[in-house]
């Protein structure tokens, strides 16, 4: 974690303290927490939902949950950013699945593509290096592993749906997912 903290100066270092203040209903701390994390949350949610309107709504839900549940954050269970991104991913996946259940997703999302607005310069310099590293690490996975991550993490499928989709057995899919994550973790130096 120390290594990660060193690589994410503006993010990991302060989030702990901000979350503690948010738990005390400090609106300024909440705004700062939002500003420090919004691009990651909105980006992930958008990647999963592929619809700008739904992504905004879900992002808002995520931060309302932060506002209300900041006190539940347990530093022993992981970093603040992992807590937040887990929450964001859970919300996005829930939304995808409820839309799928209503069988609206295909028609409403269709081939909708989200054009990411130009990255803000301020964060770009730090992030660029990180993004490059992440991209490289994703690139170091096998195609089959990457496909698994895409379907499970970004498309919101369960591992058994992934196995149906790829006509591979469950054990194969589970081990592909595990190997993909281990590969990424090692490559990114997450301890």
């Amino acid at each position, binding site marked *: 974690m120390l290594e990660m903290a060193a690589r994410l100066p503006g993010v990991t270092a302060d989030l702990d303290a901000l979350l503690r203040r948010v738990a005390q*209903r400090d*609106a300024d701390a*909440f705004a700062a927490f*939002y500003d420090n994390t*919004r*691009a*990651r*949350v*909105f*980006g*992930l949610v*958008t*990647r999963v939902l592929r619809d700008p*309107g739904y992504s*905004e*709504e879900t992002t*808002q*839900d995520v*931060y*309302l*949950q932060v*506002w*209300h549940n900041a006190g539940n954050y347990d530093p022993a*269970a*992981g970093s603040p*950013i*992992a807590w*937040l*991104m*887990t929450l964001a*991913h859970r919300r996005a*996946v829930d939304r995808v699945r409820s839309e799928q259940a209503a069988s609206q997703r295909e028609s409403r999302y269709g081939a909708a593509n*989200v054009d*990411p*607005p130009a990255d803000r310069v301020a*964060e770009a310099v730090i*992030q660029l290096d*990180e*993004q490059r590293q*992440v*991209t490289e690490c*994703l690139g170091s996975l096998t195609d089959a592993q990457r496909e698994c991550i895409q379907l*499970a*993490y970004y498309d*919101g*499928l*369960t*591992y*058994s749906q*992934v196995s149906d989709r790829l006509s591979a057995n469950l*054990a194969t899919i*589970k*081990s592909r*997912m*595990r190997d993909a*994550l281990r590969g*990424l*973790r090692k490559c*990114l130096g*997450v301890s």
Partner: protein
Amino acid sequence: MPGGVVTEPATPDLMTLATPYALHAVSQAEHDDIERQLAGAPELVARAFADEVRAVRETMAVVSTATAVEPPDHLRDRLLAAIDAHGPVRQTPQRRDWRSIVMAAAAALVVGLVVVGIGWSIRPAPNPTTAEQVFAAPDVRTVSGDIPSGGTATVVFSRERNAGVLVMNNVAPPQPGTVYQMWLVDAKGARSAGTMDAAAVAPSTTAVLPDLGDSETLAFTVEPGGGSSQPTTPIFAQLPLS
């Protein structure tokens, strides 16, 4: 965990589910099943599982830099308005001087007159208790949409709490002599959820929707005078409450 109360021992399979579990790539039923198994699993297994979950989530948190996209600015405004509607936590009861008591009494009188006058009214400021409950609800949900004449309307609501909080941002005021009226629409029809006149449509307005019932949609119409008992003009904006 000795004692044999566990009817279903942790299968050797459990650990292979740690990564799908951490990625939310299991169904709700499997999720519940995994948690049940974990509760009965030997501590060593439970800890190994938790470690794996943590490692996966830290890793994906780093990976999230690759998909970062700046959200639009209005999201920040909307969010902060919603938080504001939630209201600050009251620390200690404030000592009130005579002036604030008189003001409160005057305000209560005005609200009373309005309620008597039209039979229903939108609350000018949300009841913090209801808003608090909505934001705290596990099923809290946000829907928002653009108002064709400008601005946005956002409803944060909870079916469990049977209530919602409406936040209007940058909505143009209604024409003189008319109000915006909100309607909760269900299969049986529309019922009024209150009105907003020009004075109420500030740059950012919040209102509590105390009883959602079975309503599927929050609709907006322009109504003459102080409002109508049923919509008399076409709906100009609506938000699905689902």
